[in-house]
């Protein structure tokens, strides 16, 4: 087991400008860290740099106390599970799992013990003499994990391990990952583009965008206190609503915003570097954007209603926001397509972003209703 530390790590291909730079990240021993971000944000590249499959162009990578920049992958004390599983098709499952140990020159009995142990953890003991092609996707994924476990790594690396599985299996394997982490208590780094996986598995989420770390924090922190507009929009599904406006008044605990083509909205945040007259953006999650025909601050026209059974999502076009507003309402409310509706928001449910997209710190605990 070991911690992983990245110090000013950067990546460039050839003489091109850096695609990643100033990556600073501390991963504690035994932590489950998830890298999440849109495709092309560099999350897989970062993982592959930790694995040693990509060169590190600058900065230091420390696993435990050792600088690992130039150490070959096999000597870094890591094990990796690939998206395509990358099992060796011509070897039995046993040999797949034993391969690394065999190359390391371990004795037959040691290998056997390690393979049997990993197989029993993953409940694949009965499949050991089969070839990978005889297995289902979920079983292959287990073998790939088993191959990682037999190496007894200090750090597990998972590169989108569930994206090739169907939805039901994905939920099941997600639970297994969390169980595995509780059992093994090893440091794990997990890359995904699926924020549900990120939210449910992680002790700590790292949100990346365009080769930069946008924010690092616990799932709750990221959800309730996003550091900027990108993280606010990326975490949470459906997306957070962004409503444009102008600062009209500021006091110690609140900011009052004049919503474009709408009313005045109080927001419970501490003003940082904004003045009355500045353009800002209010963020509010769909569950907190409430239908209100008596005192609406925003007016909108319903374009679509999605009924999901226990509740419905309203998509409504508004002059106050660039993208359609999304509101979650109980399914008992009937809203017709094309009808005019009004929304109001409680001040402590609002996020506020300045024109650069940076968030103002919220002054009220978000859990209060």
């Amino acid at each position, binding site marked *: 087991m070991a911690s992983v530390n990245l110090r000013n790590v950067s990546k460039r291909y050839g003489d091109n400008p850096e695609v990643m730079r100033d990556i600073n990240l501390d991963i504690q021993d035994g932590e489950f860290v998830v890298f999440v971000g849109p495709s092309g944000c560099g999350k897989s590249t970062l993982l592959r740099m930790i694995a040693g499959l990509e060169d590190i162009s600058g900065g230091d990578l420390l696993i435990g106390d050792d600088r690992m920049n130039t150490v070959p992958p096999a000597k870094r004390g890591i094990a*990796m599970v690939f998206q395509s599983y990358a099992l*060796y*098709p011509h070897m039995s499952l046993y040999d797949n799992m034993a*391969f690394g140990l065999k190359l390391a020159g371990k004795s037959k009995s040691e290998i056997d013990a390690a393979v049997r142990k990993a197989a029993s953890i993953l409940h694949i003991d009965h499949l050991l003499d089969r070839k990978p092609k005889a297995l289902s996707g979920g079983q292959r994924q287990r073998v790939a994990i088993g191959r990682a476990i037999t190496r007894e790594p200090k750090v597990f690396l998972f590169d989108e391990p569930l994206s090739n599985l169907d939805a039901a299996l994905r939920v099941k394997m997600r639970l297994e990952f969390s169980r595995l982490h509780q059992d093994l208590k090893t440091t794990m780094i997990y890359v995904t583009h699926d924020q549900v996986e990120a939210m449910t598995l992680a002790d700590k989420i790292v949100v990346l965008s365009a080769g930069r770390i946008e924010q690092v924090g616990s799932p709750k922190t990221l959800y309730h206190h996003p550091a900027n507009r990108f993280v606010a929009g990326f975490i949470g599904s459906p997306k957070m609503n962004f409503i444009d406006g102008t600062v009209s008044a500021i006091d110690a605990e609140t900011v009052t915003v004049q919503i474009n083509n709408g009313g005045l909205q109080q927001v419970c945040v501490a003003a940082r570097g904004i003045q009355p007259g500045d353009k800002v953006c209010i963020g509010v999650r769909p569950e907190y954007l409430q239908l209100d025909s008596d005192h609406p601050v925003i007016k909108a026209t319903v374009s679509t209603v999605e009924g999901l059974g226990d509740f419905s999502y309203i998509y409504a076009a508004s002059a106050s926001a660039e993208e359609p507003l999304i509101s979650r309402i109980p399914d008992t409310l009937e809203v017709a397509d094309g009808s005019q509706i009004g929304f109001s928001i409680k001040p402590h449910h609002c996020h506020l972003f300045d024109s650069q997209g940076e968030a103002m710190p919220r002054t009220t605990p978000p859990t209060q209703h």
Partner: protein
Amino acid sequence: MNSPTREALPAVDSGRPHAASTARHARKSVWTQRWLLSPAVISLLLWSVVPLLMTIYFSVTRYNLLSPDESGFVGLDNYRFLWSDPSFLPSIANTLLLTGSVLLISVVGGVLLAVLFDQEFFGRGIARLLVIAPFFVMPTVSALIWKNMLLHPVYGLLAAAMHALGLQPVDWLGQYPMFSIIMIVSWQWLPFAFLILLTAIQSLDPEQKEAAQIDGAGPFSMFFYIVLPHLKRAIGVVVMIETIFLLSIFAEIYTTTAGGPGTATTTLSFLIYSMGLQQFDVGMASTGGILAVVLANIVSVFLVRMLASNLKGENEQ
């Protein structure tokens, strides 16, 4: 053009509800299938079975164009004569030696070249094209080039090179005829093996290599544990296709050594040519032809045994 549609539609409609008429319909469609297949099957019969039967017939007949008056059924005499022909056994041995050596050279060389050309390097595209080029040269042309421009003891490039080093030039086709033929044929077939194996090597999942890298595989373990097993099927295909063509190599021998000196480079296919078109003995040539078929079948039985499990492999089970 309309009539088949008009006939077919009512048949389907009326056929559905009753099991009996469905069966009749199925029987009818089996005959339709056979009828539709028949042009292909019949032309195949004409192309392969008729010549085979005629060859078998000629092989038990006295049929020499130099003495057309002596003809008729002779039983297995032709086979006995061929067996006692001093060039027969050497020709079988030569055929197997040529086929085996070229297979070995092209597969081993092809795998190594494929691994080499799978690496990134400057000018890889052009280099690949050059490696494949010999395969596009016609067999007679390449044999002539080898004979007159490369191996010739007086004008040849190799002779010039040996002169330059102060060595005595070698008369390759005279002193090492079989070796020279193997060299020429390998030169032609190595690119084929290379091409197939390169495409196979490129289909290797890069994540598999990376997984092996993390498992601690160095270049040699990577080659023997990951790359070579992945190439197994492609190697099987190369061996199969090349064997079929190599058993009947003729043009290279005809243009360079004409089977000589003596019987040093006489293969079975060259022996058949020499009996049929040099000695004008159609009966004996047909006998040789039948034996060539037998030889090809023996080889293919071994090949199929060796490769069958391998070829059906991976995707099934």
